[in-house]
């Protein structure tokens, strides 16, 4: 099936070439970083994780969100998701590969990565994160390949794949739970030390992920004869709505607990995020933008008339995605470090090479999605070659 990604019209190759150029630029920056060290990033003694790890965290959520199409389709036999499921699984594959790349570029000693497997350490949450992400990647590769292969031969999927598909459902929940455990089990960092972090991660993932999936499906409809189906889009939009409501509810619970209890070491992080602390407040305008986008998206999504209107839906999906990306892909990680456990307020902003390397990883993810979606569409005869 892979050969189907290797043919295409002029626009296809222009797009692939564009992504390769971005990947090349970021790749060159990474070589620079590899040679002189992570000093070329904005990271420092006090803010030791930043943009890379935040992208990793956000994308684990996008990967896990595939379960929002897999579960209704396979567990509840919800036929309307018939065409979306493979898109969800392929999005998960690309996201997990991006996650792994972000971990890799964040390492001080990338050439020692196999130490993680040479010295497996079950008491480290990072070990479990690698196990669960690796397993999730394998599950999705296997499931999508077997089901799509069967579809190409006009066969029903083989029976043995069904239990594996069912296994992938709790597995998807596990990847984001373990990712939250990376943070929420640390006595040193009060900002993350909250039992609701994992549920909140899942809620934001299950709204941002399907929102992205809606947008991708609509792009595909525009550039090919792929038709996701009105019912599928509307059902996905409902999923985004519920998940976003739950997410906002969880965020408000966090704010209440921290602000009403008024324990300084909890409040300081929120002050840094929303107001700025000791002159450091570069995230504050973005946080307020995130709140505004969340409110606007909820208004548009909860009202059925705007939700079913495609123009409003597209806007709402973009708003959900950007709002949650600011929250999780920018603020969540950095705010855990400011102030530091000793009360120092450090400045952090990603540098140009840091952003270019991140952009390259996003481009590689888009390249994988492009190739995989091309294969899926061709197998179904939705692209004329």
């Amino acid at each position: 099936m892979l050969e189907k990604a290797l043919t295409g019209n002029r626009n296809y190759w222009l797009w692939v070439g564009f992504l390769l150029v971005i990947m090349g630029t970021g790749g060159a920056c990474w070589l620079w970083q590899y040679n002189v060290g992570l000093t070329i990033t904005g990271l420092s003694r006090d803010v030791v994780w930043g943009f890379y790890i935040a992208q990793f965290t956000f994308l684990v959520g996008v990967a896990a969100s595939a379960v929002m199409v897999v579960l209704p389709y396979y567990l509840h036999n919800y036929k309307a998701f018939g065409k979306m499921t493979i898109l969800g699984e392929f999005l998960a594959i690309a996201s997990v590969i991006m996650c792994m790349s972000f971990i890799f570029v964040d390492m001080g000693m990338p050439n020692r990565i196999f130490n993680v497997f040479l010295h497996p350490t079950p008491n480290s949450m990072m070990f479990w994160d690698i196990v669960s992400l690796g397993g999730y990647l394998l599950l999705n590769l296997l499931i999508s390949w077997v089901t799509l292969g069967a579809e190409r031969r006009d066969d029903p999927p083989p029976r043995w794949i069904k239990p594996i598909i069912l296994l992938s459902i709790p597995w998807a929940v596990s990847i984001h739970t373990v990712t939250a455990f990376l943070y929420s089990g640390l006595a040193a960092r009060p900002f993350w030390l909250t039992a609701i972090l994992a549920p909140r991660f899942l809620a934001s993932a299950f709204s941002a992920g399907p929102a992205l999936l809606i947008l991708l499906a609509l792009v595909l409809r525009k550039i090919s004869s792929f038709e996701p189906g009105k019912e599928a889009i509307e059902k996905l939009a409902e999923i985004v709505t519920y998940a976003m409501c739950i997410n906002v509810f969880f965020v408000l619970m966090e704010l209440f607990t921290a602000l009403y209890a008024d324990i300084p070491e909890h409040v300081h992080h929120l002050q840094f995020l929303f107001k700025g602390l000791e002159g450091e407040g570069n995230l504050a305008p973005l946080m307020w933008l995130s709140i505004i986008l969340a409110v606007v998206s909820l208004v548009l999504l909860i009202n059925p008339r705007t939700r079913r209107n495609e123009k409003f839906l597209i806007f709402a999906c973009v708003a959900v995605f950007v709002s949650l990306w600011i929250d999780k892909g920018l603020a969540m990680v950095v705010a855990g470090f400011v102030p530091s456990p000793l009360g120092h307020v450090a400045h952090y902003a990603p540098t140009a090479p840091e952003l270019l390397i991140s952009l390259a990883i996003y481009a590689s993810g888009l390249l994988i999605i492009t190739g995989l979606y091309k294969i899926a569409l061709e197998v179904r005869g939705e692209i004329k070659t």
Partner: protein
Amino acid sequence: MDGSRRGFLWLAGLTALGAAGAASLKALAQHAEGPSVTVGLQGETRWAMVVDLDKFRLHKSWNRCIVACHRVHNVPSIPIKDDEIKWIWTEEFEKAFPSEEHEYVADRYRQLPVPVLCNHCNNPPCTRVCPTQATWKRASDGIVMMDWHRCIGCRYCIVACPYGSRSFNWRDPRPYIEGGAHRDFPTRMRGVVEKCTFCEERLAKGLKPACVEACEHGELVFGNLEDPDSEVRQLLREHFTIRRKANLGTQPEVYYIV
């Protein structure tokens, strides 16, 4: 024929899975035993340090012990604040003891530099999170050790440490070693985490830690907590001492006489 080959492959696959499963179960079980297990010399030695802030104030000897430490361990002096490496340094009182600070703290404490270093916690959160066991609490004497050849530079231990005691080599540290590296102690390379090791290399030779030796007036006292007659135990008996963020349950082994 085809069937039996397929059967063989299944069997081989299952055997491999089984072996991997058994190995990971074993690894889990080892960790389940926890820190209370006594191995070898454990229970006989637990190194600890007592810091006398008043003596430091009297003799103003903060810098002497910092320089002594950083010299013997080839710790670089990187002028860029973001990239600093520190094994022992001073913090303001309110930074070292945030919960002890209040509006009316005596000025002599408010402005008092407090020497801080790795606390060699009895229940260290940093070793728990390391994905490669590149840092661990040594069973024989409680020192929190580092293997700079195994560290993958993920910095999870820095994230987990409530004391900011760990430093990451954001850049190659070697050009910044003042007076050039000496050969008695390894230098580090960019990309790994480092911290105070209670001078385990000097302890092995029967010497006191370099910072303790540099403070001539007993500002820092080092000794074995398990020995009731040791100097540290005597000091702990005679003085009221506090530890940094003891409420987190990390059980720091550096005690402060205020």
